[in-house]
């Protein structure tokens, strides 16, 4: 499925830039047995996050790419490229629940026309490390 990176331990190529060169830049990715979704946001940055919405498990591969992130079509929960939930439009006005909701995220980078992801770290740990960085 993926080739070992020549560049750094723990990074594997998961796609090429051409794979995302489409009107809706989003593709499903399976990495180390985990189902993920890779997308490009409005700022042109990549996000690689868990495929199921943390609310009730809907499949984010069919999500709406809008507002600089990915929105679940089930209840409109909106996630940025780090997997952080930034909006829950069906929850009461002023609700801060979204601050506690985060989808596991895998670090990802673009090098020479290829997209690489960091494996070998539990996805949740990777997400935590990204928060601290």
């Amino acid at each position: 499925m993926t080739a070992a990176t020549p560049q750094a331990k723990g990074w594997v190529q998961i796609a090429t830039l051409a794979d995302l060169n489409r009107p809706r830049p989003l593709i499903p990715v399976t990495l180390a047995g985990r189902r993920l979704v890779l997308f490009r946001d409005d700022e042109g940055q990549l996000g690689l996050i868990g495929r199921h919405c943390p609310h009730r498990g809907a499949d984010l591969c069919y999500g709406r790419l809008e507002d600089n992130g990915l929105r679940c079509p089930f209840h409109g929960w909106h996630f940025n490229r780090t997997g952080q939930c930034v909006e829950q439009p069906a929850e009461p006005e002023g609700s801060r629940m979204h601050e506690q909701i985060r989808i596991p995220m895998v670090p990802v980078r673009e090098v020479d026309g290829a997209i690489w992801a960091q494996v070998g770290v539990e996805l949740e740990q990777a997400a935590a490390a990204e928060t601290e960085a």
Partner: protein
Amino acid sequence: MISQHLNDRITRIAPGTPAGAVLRQYWQPAALVDELAHGPLVPVNLLGERLVLQQGAQGLELATRVASPEEAPTHYPASDAIQIDPTGPVYPTETRAGLVFAYLGDGAPPPFPAFDCFRAPDTHVFAFKGLWECNWLQALEIGIDPAHASFLHRFLEDEDPADSYGKQFRDKAGATEIPMTKLLRDYPRPEIKVDETDYGLKITALRHMENGHTHVRVTNQIFPEAICIPMSREMTITQWHVPVDDQTCYWVTVFTSFDKPVNKDLMRAQRLKEHRLPDYAPLKNRRNDYHYDPAEQAALTYTGMGLDINVHDQWAVEGMGRIQDRTQEHLGRSDVAIIRYRRMLRRMMDALEQGDRAALPMHGAGAAGILGPLSNDAIAETADWQAVSRAADLARRAACPWDATV
């Protein structure tokens, strides 16, 4: 989030499971009356059992058929290819509202409550079903979640409500000229109230509008696995989420008209166009990405999966996986009815394990006299929403050509 143990307990329905025991204490839709044209023997795959409808001495009964463990969950053999298993159980049936119901439980079956779908004459009801490839509970839970309609079923443009016959959410809201699609889009944060009733749960979604008015939508959970919801001003939907096995279910719906006789030919043709026979599997499904179209998603619908809201629901529940992993879920305030329902189901599983069958809803004296349930949309001045919702229901019942009085 719940534990894996609890998720197993509330989802698994094979013989001998606690949730399966609760479901077996109620009449289950086993087949459409339409399916009886299949031949003298009609296969039925229900609650993990491989069964067959046949004419017995007491009328139609649900016997056991010989089946290979490799059979597909919805395997539907020809009548002359079915072999009865004389060692298996035989269950009683009752035919109501275009459906053959079967009772797979111990003891005497409970009475049918006097719900509208069972009181309406045959001219005013129409039954259909469709396959969803997932566990029954996640299928039920989308039906007791009033918030999702503002997103999953959002139309970015409104159709003419005059073209709405037989379709959900295409009518005008209450007694106004506002298309339901616009109202759902404009007010996505319903205030949700849940009341426990003698049949299950009454779920009221209040969408507070600008001018001191409130849209009131009343839907219902009918224990254990049905819902009763408004479809249009003319019709309601009573829908069971019937397990085939742990990973497969049918929605089985009775459409009930409070006005004109149902145009059954049109209703059937609308739905047969979206399904294949004999297993009533939807033509749009996960194997063809539900005909997902990103351009449509950007311009016309929230999902990009066409205008049929059944497909949206199917995508939402099948996309969770065959049995939703509730150890990973995060329920919010919008999920209050789901939380209340699970609490009720757990209480009833516990009661049945204690041998307290009478604790189950619609098992006590008077169950046959349970009417309704109230299921409608209304727009009211906010202070009056309860009275207006009730009055709108009574007005519809008063004008109904069959006896819908409560």
